[in-house]
């Protein structure tokens, strides 16, 4: 609806969050140091008791020197980061593998959007189809479909689908449900007056779809894309773990998990977190670009 109240002033700009955010970051940093010592000292004490030579004498001093710390010390983080990030495009480096996983996820999201649009159109067009399938689509949201990912990965492998594609397919399959439901909701969102208006113009069904329903559904598409992106990322990483993969964050996680290299796991976690944030930010940016007509939040 567009019944905007008379000439609303632009929303007043809120004070910047930067300072409080920096403050919280600082507090977290200050907490990190004692937390790290406390988390690692137990293991350090055990190592010392078993007579290992760590080049230090007290548990507290050794807490920053463990080979596989629970929480890495700053120095360990630094070396871990450099060894996993330089050179950035080597097949063993985290940035490269994050790119691979990100690519799989984006491809999956694109596939899921196309499929989602088709399904949403069917749902909106036919009531019988809606009644037959919508309950299951909704139920699928509450079901751990990602649990199917390992199996799907194996199955796709059996049928010779390999490399980049199976992960993208699995990402698509996980992203598909929220997108379809969001799009169906969006295609239905025009208000009755807008539909009546199109009718007074004798608009064809295709025109109603293209000029009214699709534009109206865009905000819904992006909302569901953001939800779907994180889920799809989980899907592609799980798929990487479950298949014989040669690249991707999932492969790195699996390898380092096996090797118990905790510093590497921490570094990969940070890359994975960043990848999730970047993907959602990308979609948010695309959303702002596509839906410029909306009032600023």
């Amino acid at each position, binding site marked *: 609806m567009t019944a905007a109240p008379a000439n609303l002033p632009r929303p007043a700009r809120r*004070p910047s*969050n930067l300072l*409080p*955010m920096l*403050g*919280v970051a600082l507090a977290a940093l200050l907490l990190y140091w004692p937390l790290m010592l406390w988390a690692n000292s137990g293991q350090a004490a055990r190592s010392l008791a078993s007579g290992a030579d760590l080049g230090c004498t007290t548990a507290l001093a050794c807490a920053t020197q463990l080979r*596989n710390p629970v*929480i890495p010390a700053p120095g360990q983080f630094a070396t871990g980061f450099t060894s996993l990030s330089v050179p950035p495009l080597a097949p063993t480096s985290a940035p490269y593998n994050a790119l691979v996983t990100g690519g799989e996820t984006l491809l999956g999201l694109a596939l899921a959007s196309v499929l989602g649009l088709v399904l949403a159109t069917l749902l*909106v*067009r*036919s*009531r*019988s189809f809606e*009644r*037959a399938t919508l*309950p*299951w689509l909704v*139920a699928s*949201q*509450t*079901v*751990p479909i*990602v*649990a*199917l990912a*390992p*199996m799907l990965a*194996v*199955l796709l492998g059996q049928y010779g689908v390999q490399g980049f594609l199976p992960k993208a397919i699995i990402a698509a399959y996980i992203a598909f449900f929220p997108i379809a439901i969001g799009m169906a909701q969006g*295609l239905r969102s025009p208000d009755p007056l807008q539909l009546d208006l199109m009718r007074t113009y004798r608009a064809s*069904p295709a025109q*109603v779809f293209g000029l009214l329903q699709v534009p109206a559904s865009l905000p819904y598409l992006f909302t569901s894309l*953001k939800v779907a*992106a*994180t889920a799809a*990322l*989980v899907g592609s*990483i*799980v798929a990487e*773990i*479950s298949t014989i993969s040669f690249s991707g*964050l*999932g492969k790195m*996680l699996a390898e*380092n*998990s096996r090797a*118990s290299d*905790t510093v590497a*796991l*921490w570094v*990969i976690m*940070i*890359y*994975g*977190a960043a*990848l*999730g*944030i970047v*993907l*959602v930010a990308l979609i948010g940016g695309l959303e702002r670009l596509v839906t410029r007509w909306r009032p600023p939040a």
Partner: protein
Amino acid sequence: MTQGSMQIAALPVRSGFGLPLLLLSAAGLLGLSVLLAGQAAPALAWPWLLGVVALLLVGAVGIRQSAQGESRTARILPAAATLILAVLAAEAILRAYAVPTGLIPAPSKVAQSLWAARTVLLQDAYYTFVLEALLGFVVGTLAGLGLALLAVRFRILERGVLPYAALLSSVPIVALAPVVIKAAGLGWPSKTIIVAITVLFPVVINAVRGLQSAQPMHLDLMHSYAASPAQIFREVRWPSALPFIFTALRVSSTLALINAIVAEFFGTEGHGLGFRIQIEVGRFGLDIVWAAIVVASVIGISFYLFISALERFVLRRN
């Protein structure tokens, strides 16, 4: 939308045919499966496939006709029929092509395995749902509500913490899981922690939004009564926050189980539905995998429905 449904409604068919057609289709599919059970693998698979497709078409017409009108049956029957026909058709096709259980298990095989492995699966479900998902859900919700109250009370905290919460809610839990499991051990508590963390963010974000959603006019009204802060909270802020909080809880209820299962992929002490799925995929025990997924789905849907019912109950009372 109206166009499509109007055309269908205008078809000169009587909806009374719906149920007989559905029964015919289901019986036919069942019959095919029974016929196929007698032989090892049919020499020619495609005639069977043709039969299945024909029966499915009959079923589709039946579904379409039973979906007419606004009666209770017209709302429920199509969905139920879709599931039943899909399962029956899968059974017949998998048998006709003699697909090995290690690749795609037939629904009947899954049902058998579900029954045979029920003790193990129930125990797995206990670990995954009760100890990990449910406990993590409760802990995460309580922590989230506490954090939200602090954030609303101290504006500076809201501005400092909330942006991080929004940012961190888009972090995939698979990135988090290995580290937490390394730190907290392979036992179930590490998964509980992971679930709690993933529940925390949506609850904080929505609870803060909800606590601030109180209408200024209502707040002014309370001020005009010289109400105490506690009264204002109880009468205005909390009731207006509840719908937001329940939205977060509904979302989290599904996230909790899903994330517990995924977290288990990264290490357990040999319990849990996620563990079961992973280990059985490795040895091509896909019937057990499907059985575990069926169990997880039933639990997931039930938990979601429970939270939704709770929401309706609480919101009606308020």
